[in-house]
């Protein structure tokens, strides 16, 4: 795969910074709000739902622009997922992901962005996450 051009790199950085700001503003980096959202049977914090709704509204509107274009602005083509059917791997993986999300209160983005806090728990979560990803890489042929 070709090395990225300056436009791509600038867009990557800007997009990531905005994403990081959004995560922090929405407090998705706070496991209390994540577990609070998943705690739907007890003391429920609906905030995460609003984060999702806000994100999906903007992204789906701008996706209309994507559909009209032949290619992205700085890259030769759109690299969208090609699979369309929900298969066993997807469901099993998502189920496991959800368990980890509810047990720990973190998902990849917020966990990584919170590394800037330099707190031990974050290093533990990120380290464990990377380990889990690595282990999957070792066993993925079995699925």
């Amino acid at each position, binding site marked *: 795969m*070709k090395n*990225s051009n300056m436009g*791509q*790199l600038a*867009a*990557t950085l800007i*997009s*990531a*910074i905005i994403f990081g*700001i*959004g*995560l*922090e*503003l*929405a*407090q998705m*980096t706070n496991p209390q709000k994540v577990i609070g959202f*998943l*705690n*739907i049977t*007890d*003391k429920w914090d*609906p905030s*995460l739902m*609003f*984060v999702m709704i806000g*994100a*999906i509204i*903007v*992204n*789906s509107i*701008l*996706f209309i622009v994507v559909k009209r274009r032949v290619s*992205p602005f700085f*890259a030769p083509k759109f*690299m969208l997922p090609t699979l369309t059917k929900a298969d066993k*791997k*997807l*469901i099993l*993986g998502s189920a*496991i*992901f*959800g*368990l980890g*999300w509810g047990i720990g209160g*973190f*998902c*990849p983005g917020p966990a*990584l*962005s919170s590394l800037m*806090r330099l707190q031990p*728990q974050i290093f533990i979560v*990120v380290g*464990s*996450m990377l*380990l*889990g990803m690595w282990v*999957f*890489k070792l066993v*993925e042929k079995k699925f």
Partner: protein
Amino acid sequence: MSIVNFTPLPALYGGLLIGFAAAILLLANGRIFGISGIIGGILKPQKGDVFWRILLLVGLILGAFIAKQVLGTPSIFTTRSTLWLIIGGFLMGFGSRLGSGCTSGHGVCGISRFSIRSIFATLTFMATGMIAVFIMNLMGVSY
């Protein structure tokens, strides 16, 4: 069920930023802002396809850091023990790779593309996340 800690506006605004960031990456570079997949491309590196991923993660952390300075968001607080953080992190990492995505890839990007796979994935991990929290509550594990 009672509603607690609901912060609709920061959640919504944060979500709008997240959605906007994801749209930028797609329109500019043709890439899905799926963090688990982006990390996956670092764990299984292909020539010329790694630097932008690292730059993205750096940007994510930088954005969160800037937001923390400006907003004064607090440190991460959780009463989940180290063991639960390890288990949670591991399952979250493993599951995201098996399931080909996480909250950003499936929840934010996939649903915005009206992807059936992502809708199934998101419903699944939301469900198991809620089940996990329910069970942790029954076990008397605080957060």
